[in-house]
């Protein structure tokens, strides 16, 4: 038991050191803009469909499930407000981040893990390119920058799904629905949600890169890296979310 606790703290220490290494390298020349753009495309554009479909279904289901209860209390006109606030504040960022943890963190973990196993990272270093900068910094920056955009996209699609249900079941026009949603949303809903999305993206990139970059030798190590990248990043997302809500509450009195 003592060994496992020790191992846990060693991992936390290593992860923190890895994050510090990222900040040291991120602001040093040369900058790998081309690779950063490629990674942004890979992580952003290629996640759009997944995030879109998930967001649409979440918006649809949330509205369908809440509708009977709200009708019972005569509060169905509050549907856009309730769905809008819950999606923008919490459900949108968390669901999108979890989807991306599954898709992106595992992908990074497996890719870097297999590069480590097949000595591609060593080959990069021998050729005079800093592999940490080229592989890790670009991927972590890409996830940090792309996740907020994916969250905004996911939120909009989820709201569209919700509006569709209201339009079909409650004869609420799309214009009225979105007007009500945007009236209900305040600065204090948007800013913390956007800021925490950056942290979600950073967490996904950090864990995926850490697990892949230090993957043990062998194909089993690649699988393990991909698997633990998803598990650890998903868990950390909830920790980050808790901290973000706690801090937001201080500033915005949610």
């Amino acid at each position, binding site marked *: 038991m003592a060994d496992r606790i020790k191992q846990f703290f060693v991992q936390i220490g290593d992860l923190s050191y890895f994050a510090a290494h990222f900040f040291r390298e991120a602001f040093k020349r040369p900058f790998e803009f081309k690779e950063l753009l490629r990674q942004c495309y890979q992580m952003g554009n290629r996640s759009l469909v997944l995030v879109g479909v998930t967001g649409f279904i979440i918006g649809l289901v949330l509205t369908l499930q809440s509708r009977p209860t709200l009708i019972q209390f005569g509060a169905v006109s509050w549907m856009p407000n309730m769905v809008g606030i819950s999606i923008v504040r919490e459900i949108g960022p968390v669901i999108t981040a979890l989807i991306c943890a599954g898709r992106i963190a595992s992908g990074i973990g497996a890719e870097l893990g297999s*590069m480590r196993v*097949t*000595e*591609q990272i*060593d*080959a*990069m270093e*021998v050729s*005079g*390119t800093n592999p940490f900068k080229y592989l890790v910094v670009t991927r972590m920056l890409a996830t940090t920058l792309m996740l907020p955009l994916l969250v905004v996209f996911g939120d909009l699609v989820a709201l569209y799904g919700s509006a569709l249900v209201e339009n079909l079941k409650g004869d609420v026009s799309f214009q009225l629905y979105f007007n009500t949603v945007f009236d209900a949303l305040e600065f204090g809903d948007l800013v913390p949600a956007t800021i925490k999305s950056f942290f979600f993206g950073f967490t996904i990139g950090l864990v995926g890169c850490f697990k892949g970059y230090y993957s043990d030798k062998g194909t089993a190590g690649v699988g393990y890296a991909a698997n633990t990248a998803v598990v650890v990043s998903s868990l950390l997302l909830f920790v980050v979310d808790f901290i973000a809500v706690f801090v937001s509450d201080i500033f915005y009195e949610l």
Partner: protein
Amino acid sequence: MEAQQMALENNTNGTAGKGSRKAVIKIKDAYKSFGDNHVLNGFNMVLYEGENLVVMGKSGSGKSVMIKCLVGLMQPDRGYVEVMGREISTLDQKTLDELRSDIGFLFQGSALYDSMTVRENLEFPMRRHQKKLGDFSDTTSLVMEALENVGLAHAIDLMPSELSGGMKRRVALARTLILKPKIILYDEPTSGLDPITAKEIIELMRSIQKKYGTSSLIITHDVDCARVISERMILLVDGINYAEGSYNELSQSTDPKVEAFFKK
């Protein structure tokens, strides 16, 4: 065996009978352990300019660790590693990268970048060594020259996944050559290849050495490869250079540990 050991001692001091040839790599009393596994136990080696030196040893005997210490991918726990007159452990990152441009490294599994085409794989090492290459804008001719050297000019736009094992090894060799290195380190160049392809790779290595006059350090456990390519051989046993000499000298040795390498 005493005579062989004496030859080793002389060689590591750089005073051995290699005529006026300059030592380009020197390893002296290198130790490296991974936990309780002592991989190198005072290993010594000298590679002379223009020489083909083969280091043979069993799997897991520390050959790859030793070769990685030469390019700074690993650091020995103790000992002295010098490449082209510079002690590796004392170099800062920038100087080490400059030195690495003079060292080609052929990895055991080719280590081609999966996400890049053959052309991009070859262009990749050029990114950080523009000074050495001069006109960086004309990369295509350099890439083509390197690919022609290995007979794969037609594969320039293919992805590594579209290449056979032998072709991958050739492309890796072309990537090694792209910066026109003075020393080439081969880590198991024929492992995992069929005998015919292995022979082709060995021929390629010989022709490259002839054309560019590079010094080559070849890590292998392939006796045929050693026979064809070596001018001198070192047997790495239990982390030390157990025996040294030409292929003929070692293959006729009566020492059981040396004999074991040459038994068919």
